[in-house]
């Protein structure tokens, strides 16, 4: 599975688990408007670390916080081992 597909799959899975209505997953979707709160995003980051073996947030301390889903995916694509 590509990094992008893994990220998108986690968004869908966590939204379902946490009973959140997910906005359509486009690259320009603002994360804070995705329907997911901080706790959901935190769970996604943890599950992606298990699935992909990277946590780009802790790996690069100077990385900017992602604003859109596109930024988020890019962060993982650049960090993927």
């Amino acid at each position, binding site marked *: 599975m590509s990094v992008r597909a893994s990220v998108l799959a986690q968004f869908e899975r966590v939204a379902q688990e946490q009973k959140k209505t997910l906005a359509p997953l486009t690259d320009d979707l603002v994360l804070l408007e995705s329907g997911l709160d901080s*706790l959901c995003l*935190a769970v996604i980051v943890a599950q992606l670390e298990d699935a992909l073996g990277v946590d780009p947030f*802790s790996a690069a301390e100077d990385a900017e916080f992602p604003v859109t889903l596109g930024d988020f995916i890019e962060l993982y694509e650049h960090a993927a081992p």
Partner: protein
Amino acid sequence: MPPRDGRSLWDAVRAAGALAERALWGAEASVRLGELVGGSSLGGRLEELRGRSVLVATRDQLTAALALLELDGVARRLVLCPPDLPRKVVPFVMATAAVDAVVSDRAALEAGSVGTLVTCSARLAPADSERAGPHHTEWILLTSGTTGVPKLVVHTLASLAGAINGDRVQTVPAVWSTFYDIRRYGGLQILLRALLGGGSLVLSSAAESTGDFLIRAGARGVTHISGTPSHWRRALMSPSAHRIAPHYVRLSGEIADQAILDHVRACYPGARIAHAFASTEAGVGFAVEDGLAGFPASLLTQRGAEVELKVEEGSLRIRSARTGIRYLGSPGEPLADRDGFVDTGDIVELRGARYHFVGRRGGIINVGGLKVHPEEVEAVINGHPQVQMSVVRTRKNAITGALVVADVVLRTAPDSAETGRVAELEREILQRCRDALSRHKVPAAIRFVRFLGVAGTGKVVRQHA
């Protein structure tokens, strides 16, 4: 300025002056402090609350702030009900605090029978009586306990306002804001800073997105703003992060790591950035403004300081006039030791000339500023008939600082061919947790293990971080 002995919150607010220009701005309604001179949020019923133990249980933060302003000095006791207090513990809180009156902005509160129910509204009625009273009102703040039942911490206005420095005169009145709810210690600090320091306050709202809140705070010209590191991580993910241009940014309630301090600095290069240590029990310990994670070891040896710090058995301990006074209704559980030091339970480690926070004693997990006691989660997991034992631990997280995860030992381990059964058990255990616990307490991951480390004490081994 901290109120002088015996002066009520309203008297201290009035003494700070300029009431007509100052306001409390909520998401839905706002009140100028000047309107409170002749107006009341309590519908002309302040007298009924004189000398009472009052539960302030409002949906809205603005109405809560108004009630606190009017009732300090009048009520015997004010119990601040946080917004997410589970209904099932309300009767316990009311009994423990001997509540005999409730202030609410809801038509009816499902809290059983109370002596008096007073409705509180941001639509002010003419003030009916003198807002002064003989009472040194006790302020009761709730904090989470190991079994899911909250602990009630007694403060006074003097202990709560002890860290508010009145000698730093603001040339321009501060516009404060906070991501916190003001019914929590961190948020209440900001409410009091605004009220006692001659400023205004933009209140957050649970019903509002982070982006909308930032836009609203920016429109009010916010100058001073506080939140947990998790609040700030969320704010920096918002396209509206640049809608505010604060002079002062404060982080508290969680460990502020170097990354978040650097991110905040990069976003608000002109701001003073402080990270503070405070807790409901220990009060405000210190605030550090050097932009570095941790705190200088020299804070432990300052002579004549208002706050004395020491490290014993690895944890930070604090003695000051800002700590809570006692627990209500927890007989035999002192809030401070014999010398008056409060054990924060926060484990610190000396690296060079600086102490760094490394975790919590007892494995307490801080998820975005909300405490999780592992025992409470383990009790729910262990209730599953297939579970022999479990240990709940913290997992570091870039968004909320930490998440809850669980290691579980099953009574009979399914063999490797039964992967379907393992997934099913995981789902069942998580469902139990979701049914019984607040969302932040539900494990983000469950790992099935064959055994858990057990210490010589017979207890499961917990690690600090």
